[in-house]
């Protein structure tokens, strides 16, 4: 095999709200074979189902049109394939919306593939067993929202073999978005576990975009990152054996070195020797990292074993409402006044509203996020009371907002800056199933 047989694959987004300019820069200057946009989280998907239930044309990622409008002309010009899970809960709708953008931009002859089959909402029986909390779907006792299987690289291969310019999926395991084009390019077999494990490691390192190029890393004076405001997104130069160099474009911010890549190697990982994907049970514990020049890290040694028999399925249920309300106290004795305010809210929720909803009260500026773990000796003079409550009904959620706002007149002295909001929430659990994916292609 020629030594220059390197597949150049970049990440254009690592979550649904990720920046767009680094992706534009990568396609313009990166001589890319492919760029991957990863835009789904567990909650994103559940909210996608809700959006689609409200409007049958929606349910895909909200920024789809903006991303496609910027990327399609560049991808066509530079011969870069775009692979994404932006379809979320409406893959066909996302493919059609993308085709509309392409036509609108005068891009004729573009092939846009929709990868279908992850949505198993209609196929999950009430007696399907959930691994947590250990009951069946029917026994959860909450309204069902939707269920999606994590598809693997297999599901994307027919779209790649059909020469699609844009491949749009819904729920696909994040590393598989990268593994699929690598499998196609290097003709890796679906049961070559070591090489699939190595490819999954590359996908895992790449899937969160800036997290491997210096985002989520800076700690001023301790771990500095140059030009963080212009942090570049990653580019992997992958070889046929599944090893790769992780890098970024010159003249972008950020840093790619051993420390950064190590942190990302274990990000969202539990057992590093058994990272389950639909394609392979990957083993990252044998990985080796080596700095290979400025902002270049060579990754090798990832391996794997036979893949799980069934696909993981995320099942989403209505989680009721999350209420959050805040009010500030400042100046002398601020912490004592905020503490009193919190006590008043607690007492009235119990006595006036008879509420036993799960709730929590924090003093931001004294101890908020780590409240029960750390207590500082010094009391801040600038304290924000935060109350949160999980309710089954909107009215019960609004009771919390009402109680916190009424502190303005009825609570301790000098409370101000009230803000409150109620957000619908979802609960997600997992089960396992077999599914049959398929691909449809639209040509503009």
């Amino acid at each position, binding site marked *: 095999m020629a030594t220059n047989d390197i597949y150049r694959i970049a990440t254009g987004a690592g979550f649904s709200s990720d920046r767009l300019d680094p992706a534009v820069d990568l396609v313009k200057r990166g001589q890319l074979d492919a760029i991957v946009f990863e835009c789904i989280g567990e909650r994103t998907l559940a909210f996608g189902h809700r959006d689609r239930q409200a409007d049958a044309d929606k349910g895909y990622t909200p920024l789809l049109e903006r991303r496609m409008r910027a990327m399609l002309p560049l991808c066509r010009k530079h011969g870069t394939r775009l692979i994404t899970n932006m379809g979320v809960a409406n893959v066909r709708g996302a493919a059609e919306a993308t085709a509309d953008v392409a036509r609108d931009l005068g891009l004729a002859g573009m092939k846009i593939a929709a990868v279908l089959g992850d949505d198993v909402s209609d196929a999950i029986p009430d007696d399907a067993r959930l691994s947590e909390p250990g009951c069946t779907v029917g026994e959860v006792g909450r309204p069902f929202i939707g269920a999606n299987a994590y598809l693997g690289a297999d599901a994307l291969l027919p779209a790649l073999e059909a020469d699609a310019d844009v491949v749009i999926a819904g729920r696909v395991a994040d590393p598989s978005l990268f593994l699929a084009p690598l499998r196609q390019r290097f003709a890796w077999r679906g049961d070559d576990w070591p090489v699939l494990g190595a490819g999954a490691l590359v996908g895992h390192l790449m899937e969160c975009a800036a997290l491997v190029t210096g985002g989520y890393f800076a*700690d001023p004076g301790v771990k500095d990152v140059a030009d963080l405001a212009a942090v570049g997104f990653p580019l992997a130069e992958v070889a046929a054996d599944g090893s790769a160099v992780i890098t970024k474009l010159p003249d972008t911010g950020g840093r790619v070195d051993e420390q950064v890549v*190590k942190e990302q*190697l*274990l990000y969202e*990982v539990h057992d590093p020797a058994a990272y389950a994907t639909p394609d392979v049970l990957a083993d990252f514990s044998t990985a*080796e990292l080596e700095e290979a020049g400025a902002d270049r890290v060579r990754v090798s040694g990832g391996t794997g074993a036979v893949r799980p028999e069934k696909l993981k399925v995320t099942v989403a249920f209505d989680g009721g409402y999350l209420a959050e309300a805040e009010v500030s106290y400042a100046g002398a004795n601020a912490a004592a006044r905020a503490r009193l305010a919190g006590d008043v809210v607690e007492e009235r929720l119990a006595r006036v509203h008879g509420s036993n909803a799960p*709730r929590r009260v924090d003093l931001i500026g004294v101890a908020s996020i780590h409240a029960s773990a750390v207590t500082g000796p010094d009391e801040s003079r600038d304290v924000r009371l935060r109350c949160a409550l999980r309710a089954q009904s909107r009215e019960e959620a609004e009771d919390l907002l009402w109680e916190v706002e009424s502190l303005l007149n009825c609570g301790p002295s000098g409370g101000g800056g009230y803000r409150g909001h109620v957000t619908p929430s979802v609960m997600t659990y997992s089960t396992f199933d077999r599914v049959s994916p398929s691909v449809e292609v639209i040509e503009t």
Partner: protein
Amino acid sequence: MSRRPLREIAHARAGDKGNRSNVSVFAYAAEHYPVLLAEVTPARLKREFGGVLRGEIVRYELPNLNGINLVSVNESLNLDGHGKSWSSLILGMEIEVP
């Protein structure tokens, strides 16, 4: 022996998947990896931060990276429902360094 904050010899990153969060901790220098193993134990973390790191804490060891991976359960009503700030919490603990 000197008593120092963990952050002087190690860096860390927190991530979440479902209702579980993980914090990976890496020694800057290979000679400090045994210090991580000795000092950053599930029992010690449970004792110091049990109010936040709930349930069982599982530790995986990665000698090839001079790192450890800690897995625990997060709490959805917390302002930081994903446990993203746990890396800073753990780096603040005081450890004995030879």
